[in-house]
């Protein structure tokens, strides 16, 4: 491990000052569950590690007309225990409760999970199906990006060197909608998705026709991806068993996985199919139960 400077700004202004230092290679630290390990292993060699948890805005967790506001430093535990998340964003709650382990969830948050930009990030597909936007900030100001444009490749996100993530905004979910996330791991905990699928459907309560379907996949491409072919199968139809099966097959089109120690290309595609079916089935069950 290389030695580094540690900073813990108490305000955004202070943080921007640190980010403006010309010579600095700053990495923001939220939970640190990815970063500390990467620094230890020498995979990242930042000159400054900047803990953002002392900045009040970073811990924000709120639900208003605009939707759900998740500060970049909010922990998974705080997020999934936040009543509006439990009620309105089931998929997000489910995926936050899957990250690492209970101990890790007490430290790690969704902000860090997406900034780390691992293709396997559990919370990414859920944010995608919920149309989330990310708020990026830096000395030059703020900007907002749709979450789908945030991931550029494994470990790479759309932020410039002097930018940090401020938070995530998730619009209020449409009426009569449901979302779920499932991932497959060989173990029961402390593991990384071999494949993960989030689905969200909006069903017309009268006609039972699917107005919108959004399906996103983890761990099967260099970034989280939308399974648009599968969505098209469902939209405009009354979802039945046969359509769910077809959506599962079509979801594979979006998967461009690799073979590694966690699973082969073929296995990952098979899992995408199965998990797509299962998440869609769960969404219908949730809507039926309401």
């Amino acid at each position, binding site marked *: *491990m290389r030695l580094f400077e540690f900073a813990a700004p108490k305000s955004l202004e202070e943080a921007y000052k640190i980010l403006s230092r010309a010579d600095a290679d700053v990495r923001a630290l939220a939970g640190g569950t990815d970063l500390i390990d990467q620094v230890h292993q020498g995979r990242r060699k930042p000159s400054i590690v900047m803990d953002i948890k002392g900045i009040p805005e970073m811990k924000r967790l709120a639900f208003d007309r605009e939707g759900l506001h998740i500060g970049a430093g909010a922990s998974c535990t705080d997020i999934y225990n936040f009543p509006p998340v439990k009620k309105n964003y089931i998929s997000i709650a489910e995926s936050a409760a899957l990250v690492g382990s209970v101990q890790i969830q007490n430290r790690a948050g969704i902000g860090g999970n997406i900034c780390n930009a691992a293709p396997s990030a559990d919370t990414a597909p859920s944010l995608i199906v919920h149309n989330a936007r990310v708020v990026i900030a830096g000395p030059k100001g703020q900007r907002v990006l749709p979450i789908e444009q945030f991931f550029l490749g494994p470990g790479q996100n759309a932020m410039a060197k002097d930018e940090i993530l401020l938070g995530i905004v998730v619009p209020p979910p449409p009426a009569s909608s449901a979302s779920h996330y499932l991932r*497959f791991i*060989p*173990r*029961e905990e*402390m*593991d990384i998705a071999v494949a993960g699928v989030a689905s969200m459907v909006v069903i017309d309560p009268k006609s039972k026709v699917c107005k919108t379907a959004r399906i996103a996949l983890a761990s099967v491409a260099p970034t989280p991806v939308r399974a648009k072919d599968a969505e098209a199968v469902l939209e405009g139809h009354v979802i039945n068993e046969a359509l769910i099966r077809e959506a599962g097959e079509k979801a594979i089109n979006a998967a461009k996985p690799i073979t590694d*120690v966690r*699973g082969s290309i073929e*296995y990952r595609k098979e899992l995408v199919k199965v998990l797509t079916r299962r998440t869609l089935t769960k969404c219908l069950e949730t809507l039926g139960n309401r």
Partner: protein
Amino acid sequence: MPKYKYLGKATQKVDALERVTGKAAFGADIHLPGMLHGKVLRSPHPHAIIKAIDYGMALKLEGVKAVVTSKDLPSLEDARASFGGEVSIDQEHLRKLFLAHDKVLFEGHPIAAVAATSLEIAEQALELIKVEYEVLPPVEDAFKAMQPNAPLLHPYLYPKTLGQKPKNPGNVATIMFHERGDAEKGFAEADVVVEESFETAMVHQVYIEPQVDAAQVEEDGKVTLWTANQGIFNVQSQLSSILNIPLGSINVVPMEIGGGFGGKIITYVESLTIMLSQKAGRPVKMVMSREEVFKATGPGSPGYFTIKVGAKKNGKITAAYIKMIHDCGAFPGGPTPMASLVSFGPYNIPSIKVDGYDVVTNKPRVQAYRAPGGTPVNFSVESTMNVLADKLGVDPLKFRMQNYAKEGDYMVNDQRYNRIGVKAVLDRVVSSSHWNTPWEGPNRGRGMALGFWIGAAGTSSALVLINSDGSATGVSGQVDLTGTRTSTQQIIAEELQMPLEKVNVKVGDTDSTPYTMGSFGSRTTYSFGTAVYRASRDALAQMKARAATQLKVNPEDVEYAEGRFWSKKDPEKAVSWNEVARSTITRGEGVVTGRGTVTGLGHAPEFTAQIADVEVDPETGKVYVKRFTAIQDAGLAINPMQVEGQIQGGVTQGIGWGMSEYYYYDKGKLRNASFLDYRMPTSLDVPMIDIEIVEVPASEGPYGVRGVGEVSIVPPPAAIAEAIYRATGVRMNKLPMTPEAVLWAIKTKDKEREPVAANGDS
């Protein structure tokens, strides 16, 4: 009335408080004044010739105090000693293992070591060492190693064999042939013969504490080494031999050990630490990282097996054959001899033939892993037995009831069994609530398997000191890996008939305790327990003699019970234990030190039967182990709670071995050297493991105690494989049985079962 007052009871662990309060000192807790930190430069290549090493730049870095390479190794006077018990390694190869000489033979092979004033400086210094390699193609597995044109790891290696020596050197380290009875005739007599092939993966013991040690070399050359190894005297003799230091000049101090499972018998960083301390003139500490542990310590051997078993229609086995190939990594010495013993161990088979091969490859040199060689061969044999039982139309339990081994039957190595408990564990299966509770429904299955481990005995010693207040102290150099201090306390209390709290137990260093072999091979409670028993009896006899003097009677006329000596002839004539103890430091024959030592006890074989219930997700292939019972013959469980803990640990490791753990190599490089991708089961991946202890006393040793540490890891994969078969109809002949492997097996079976479409009509 129970036979024993303190044995057979779940007494509190002697070291429980210091463990739960965090006071117990492990290897990493060592801090010495002026201590340097050591780090090892390791090879990125699995196979290469070292052309040159230049560490001039590293030495110039401020804070760097010493660099060592193989050039710093002392010459040897007498070569060819060998170490390490069940998976032993000879002196020359142990030297090449801890520090590459002219060639690197696996990814992570040490090339040089640095000592510096901080860990960060040591790490930086490694980056400044320039090594010139001539990279060679790696020998990736045992099959490739045996091909005629395979690159050679050791140009001097000829197989150890009783047969004819081949003309050319190769990668085969051992060839083993053995036949008892006439196998050909046995197969000819069989009504049903099955043959199956199996493959198992390289796995690691994954002790939670990485290898760690500190060394201090004095001006006169004397060495003090603090280490967390399974045996301090084993460490002493290894280091003396490979570093050419007089044995008596090395004092090995045991630290608390965070697991070993056979992987901490051989030394790794210890030699480097001493060499660095010799050169730097300061104490040096070395802590391995988890990545280093995975890449460069000694995992368990992968094996390839072909098993053939024949039986009569009535279910009696007539003959068995096994061919096995073990990949032993970079240096000779694999588990083939032990695996051959385990193979058909639970069965009485008239004729057996064995062909075995140990083969070297460009992987870390394997070491013992809990019942070394046992789990892979048992998985293969028990799975074959289940196929045979299926063909014969009998259930697996009945089939075993017809063929189990008993006292007087032959082992594979032609020795006869003494008293054993195979039938006892099978009987317990029959009566167990697990076996008698139905496990039905789709995708569910139940399996059972037997397991055997021979267990070691070896040499052990202990002292029992009687203190002037009447309390006793058990002193030894026996590393407490599994609760030895607690069972020692129980034995002393039992024999001296004194309360547990009056018995202290101390584990000392090699300078202050008599020789005792390390804690491995299921030998500790069996053999070391015998030494403690003898030392206690000796102390009691000496105390009786002193009491006799005080009572003015012959020692044989003295009776003792519960802290009181009296004359058999005149029970009124009595003196208390405490009084006698007090007198020993002022008069008469002096202080009492009971001595106990033992060599060469016979075997006390361990047998187990295990039952597994699984449920399989047919769409993902994921197998959930829902219920597990281990029935094991412990001879006598001195501390049932600790025995249960041992068995649960062994089963958990066996479940990991069976289902998720494996080394993932890609062109000779390990791709999963971390806990993330080397998947040990978590607490959520194993069910409550129910234990039933059966007690068939061992033929030798006090109390009928048997070792219990190893056999529990042997049958879990076989039991689970059978359960998967019952759940899905597919037989898994390769470990680990990952979800992906199970899914493809199910899909292949389903395809085979699809009806062939009729042509045109219908």
